[in-house]
């Protein structure tokens, strides 16, 4: 049994790190979404900044490459008037000997106020958060920008913001997540967020090789037949299919995948007529999604990106305002 308490919340129940959506009280999730709506309008102003994090340093610590996520965090930080330092730590420099915790200690000594961390290992941000708590640096906050297969909480939150924007009420929706759920941290975060916000039916659609065990325990109905799974659905979240899946004996080919699990206009028509199509990006056109759908009127993929900046601004400003 571990003696570590849930490191996301401080002893007053306030959010001090954002590591995962699992276990977050619904009130905190809603608070983040509500705050985000105030940030959406900033992008339309002349001065696209608010002074909330003026003088604060945000360190983007990316152990896994990702230009797009890093860029949105950078934009979000700068719109909060924070200073941003980007650190791309490739595997090779880690192999030069400096451990993850040594890296954190060095950066803390440079007065980092916030770490935005992406790492290939599930759980890495927890190690960092625990270390900061143990070394009495409770004023330094950690945002998980994606850890292994475990969680991508800001993506989950921006997906919820998007759904709320278009559908308003979570409690009468059917949401389908399609694709490589086995390897997807986005899927896991979406599932936790949807169930926390009271979505009555969450569906996972994919071949058996890409569906992890234990989904039922997470409150999800699984489908291996996409036509069945999409019937009457209000929201479709498409996941990216990575090339490695073909070499790992999980799938034979991208063409076959598209035939059975690609979102074509015909398949989209099985969902509700006002269903929205989402994708965390980047898209593989012709593999998981047909261009006609991606560019069609039901796709809300670009608004997701816009909302993503506002949601990240909300997360960062709520964290930065929490005392240890």
């Amino acid at each position, binding site marked *: 049994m571990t003696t570590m308490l849930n490191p996301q919340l401080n002893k007053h129940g306030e959010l001090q790190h954002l590591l995962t959506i699992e276990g977050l009280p619904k009130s905190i999730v809603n608070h983040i979404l509500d*705050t985000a709506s*105030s940030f*959406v309008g900033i992008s339309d*102003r002349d*001065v696209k*900044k*608010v*002074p*909330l994090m003026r003088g604060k340093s945000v360190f983007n610590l990316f152990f896994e490459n990702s230009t797009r996520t890093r860029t949105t965090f950078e934009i979000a930080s700068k719109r909060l008037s924070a200073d941003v330092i980007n650190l791309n730590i490739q595997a090779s420099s880690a192999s030069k000997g400096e451990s993850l915790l040594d890296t954190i200690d060095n950066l803390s000594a440079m007065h980092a106020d916030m770490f935005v961390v992406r790492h290939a290992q599930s759980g890495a941000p927890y190690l960092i958060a625990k270390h900061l708590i143990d070394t009495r640096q409770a004023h330094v906050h950690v945002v998980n920008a994606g850890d292994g297969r475990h969680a991508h909480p800001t993506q989950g939150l921006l997906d919820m913001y998007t759904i709320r924007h278009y559908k308003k009420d979570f409690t009468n929706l059917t949401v389908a997540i399609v694709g490589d759920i086995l390897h997807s941290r986005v899927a896991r975060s979406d599932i936790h967020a949807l169930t926390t916000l009271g979505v009555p039916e969450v569906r996972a659609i994919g071949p058996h090789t890409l569906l992890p065990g234990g989904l039922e325990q997470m409150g999800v109905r699984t489908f291996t037949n996409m036509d069945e799974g999409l019937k009457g659905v209000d929201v479709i979240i498409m996941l990216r299919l990575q090339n490695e899946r073909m070499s790992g004996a999980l799938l034979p080919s991208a063409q076959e995948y598209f035939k059975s699990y690609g979102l074509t206009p015909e398949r989209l028509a099985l969902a509700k007529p006002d269903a929205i199509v989402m994708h965390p990006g980047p898209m593989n056109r012709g593999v998981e999604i047909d261009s006609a759908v991606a560019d069609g009127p039901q796709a809300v993929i670009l608004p997701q990106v816009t909302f993503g900046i506002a949601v990240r601004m909300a997360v960062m400003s*709520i964290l930065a305002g929490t005392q240890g």
Partner: protein
Amino acid sequence: MTLPTNPSQLDAEALYATLLAQVKTGLAGVANVAIVGIHSGGAWLAERLAADLGLLPRLGVIDVSFYRDDYAQKGLHADVKPTQIGFDVTGATILLVDDVLYTGRTTRAAINELFDYGRPARIMLAALVDRGGRQLPVAADFVAASVTLPATQALVLQRAATGQPGQFTLTIE
């Protein structure tokens, strides 16, 4: 201008009438006027003023949560509402409206926020009640009543849920 009044005798609707009269006179003949209310009490007042002055298309509402100076001590306010400015701030004469003018810090935050939208020609401040206790050099152009209150008490504007317009009342908490 106005003499200090007993806070327990405040009639919010009467005060509003006074304020409206002052504002009408003060803004007569001024071009490019817009009204911006500070959420939430100021926003209600601004709504009523805009309706009574025929300026509804030039109405905005501002939430100063992102510009407050106590973020480091108190964190982000629990109830942030979006700021909505539907008109061009640059060149406008903006009447900033708040319910209670106290330390002046909220006004400072609101002015900073407005300047991030553009360069106004002029900003004037209207407050229903001035309770003194200024901590910054801020003064209202239009005030309906002045009162003194101990620091432990707050003066809160409320708007009735029913009625068009909802009735204003002031309470001490």
